């Protein structure tokens, strides 16, 4: 009996799910927008094969630089966002392009995260010359503009998705390493860590159980922001002809192709850029919102 009345009371206090979602949206407009944009990008990348209306790599010179369907009075164009310089469907290429952007950025972030966490933990937890050595390398990497570094290395190695991923991973670990090292230095002297040490906790156990959970939220925020940055960097490199192989549909590559047709076929230059911007904005909004929620210090 008692439980039933309690449940009734609970219902009165707790608004319906719809209302709660509505309230959440009103309270976190930027976060919700971020989540929506990121979800669209991930969904598009995962189901590209199903969503894409045409074959993204099949040239069809009859439809070369076709105007977008809704602007075409002749009824010749069958492409929603128009055709590119060899008559491929722009929309399908943009959909497949999402795969490249996300694969490169997420894999790049994973590599830099693992490497950065590992080196950051070693530097912060064990200190001494490890710390000096790792932080010196970090300083050098920070001093060298990434774009210049990437231009030199990519021109040496040639285009390729895996090469961009490795370069991003091997340069951006510094951000994670510094973050984690800083947190560890401030956590190390805390009483509960000292206590864990005193009762005979091993290094691994202390790091895994007490230190990493404490830095997890900062790491997630940084990782989200880096995904946004990596998408931009990959697109820039590909635009310069130093990123993804030009035969693979990628947003940066599409913009590079469009350069000679900007004056005659604006759509080839507009839509791939919109795709980049929306996706990057999504991750930035998400990261910003997560930081506000998870990290009250910022």
């Amino acid at each position, binding site marked *: 009996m008692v439980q039933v009345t309690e449940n009734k009371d609970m219902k009165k206090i707790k608004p319906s799910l719809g209302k709660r979602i509505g309230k959440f949206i009103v309270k976190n*407009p*930027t976060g919700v927008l971020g989540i929506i944009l990121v979800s669209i990008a991930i969904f598009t990348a995962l189901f590209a094969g199903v969503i894409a209306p045409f074959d993204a790599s099949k040239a069809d010179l009859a439809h070369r630089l076709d105007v977008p369907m809704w602007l075409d009075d002749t009824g010749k164009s069958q492409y929603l966002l128009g055709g590119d310089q060899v008559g491929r469907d722009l929309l399908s290429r943009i959909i497949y392009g999402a795969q490249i952007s996300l694969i490169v950025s997420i894999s790049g972030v994973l590599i830099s995260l693992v490497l950065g966490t590992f080196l950051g933990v070693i530097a912060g937890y064990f200190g001494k010359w490890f710390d000096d050595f790792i932080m*010196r390398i970090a*300083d*050098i990497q920070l*001093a*060298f*503009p*990434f*774009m*210049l*570094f990437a*231009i*030199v*290395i990519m*021109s*040496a*190695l040639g285009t390729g998705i895996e090469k961009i991923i490795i370069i991003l991973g091997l340069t951006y670990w510094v951000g994670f390493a510094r973050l984690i090292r800083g947190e560890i230095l401030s956590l190390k002297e805390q009483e509960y860590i000292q206590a864990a040490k005193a009762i005979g906790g091993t290094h691994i156990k202390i790091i895994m159980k007490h230190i990493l959970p404490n830095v997890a939220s900062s790491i997630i925020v940084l990782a989200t922001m880096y995904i*946004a940055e990596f998408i*931009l960097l990959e*697109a*820039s490199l590909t*635009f*310069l002809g*130093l990123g993804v192989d030009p035969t693979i549909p990628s947003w*940066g590559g599409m*913009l590079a192709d*469009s*350069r000679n047709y*900007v*004056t005659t076929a*604006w759509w080839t*230059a*507009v839509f*791939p*850029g919109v795709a*980049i*911007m929306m996706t*990057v*904005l999504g991750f*930035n*909004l998400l990261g*910003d919102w997560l930081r506000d929620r998870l990290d009250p210090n*910022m």
Partner: protein
Amino acid sequence: MAKYIMKRLLHTLLVIIAISMIIFFAIRLTGDPVTVMFGAGEPTKEAVEQITEKLGLDKSLPEQYFIFMKDLVQFDLGVSYRSNQPVLDLILERAWPTFLLAMGGMVVAVLIAFPVGIISAVKKGKSVDIFGRIFSLIGISFPNFWLGIMLILIFSVSLKWLPASGFDSFSALILPSLTLGLILSGILARLIRSSMLDVLKMQYITTAKSKGIKDWVVIIKHAFRNALLPTVTFMGLQFGALLGGAVIVEQVFAWPGIGRLIVDAINQRDYPVVQGGVIVLAIVMVVVNLLVDLSYSIINPRIRTGRG
């Protein structure tokens, strides 16, 4: 203080050496410049050997690096394989356009970011702030080369107001500077907002307000001046991003700067030009960072006690 400066100088030198090594060895992986120089023709074996020897490419790598560093110290960056001109001359020729572009970008960024950042901070949480923050986020989410293409589409192709390329008039500088500056203003506005927020929390702001000083006087004279310090440091540190951005923006607008020189040289396998160009940009950046660090430590003595 002297000890701190020495430490920073030594560190800077270390960074420059590390960078020169990375670039030197990476460039050597690019491919054989001799074959590229002959283009489509079939060169004789003697001709290839002769050129290889002339360029010093027959020596061992450490030897080549040693020669390269020895020359670098004497400001000798070698001779372009293509045009046979000294690399330093080529770079100096292109330095002015890149400098102009970087300054133009900085001016645009400051003009936009300062008001946006300050107003955002003062009106924290209000709709102006949300607008400001979204503006900044959009700014950092724009691919700079795409922004350049869009500006060309709007102002050159459609409206025909401004030239899409060229370097001969002031109007040619506007679109490239806008492209570079708008992107940077996003980052800068975010920073100004957060450092203003930090300062506005301080007790001396409350004191100033309670003395009956007008709001905007407190904001500009008391808060903004203190928020400026981290901002200026940041702008110095952002110099590298500015140069990296310039490399790409120069491609879009066919701007005759160092960035285009480097990218063209990569396609022509012109080792000395790529090497020299990247090293000069890197050194400029490292030195700017050093100067910012040092000036900051003079203004704010607390910095010196930290880890150098």
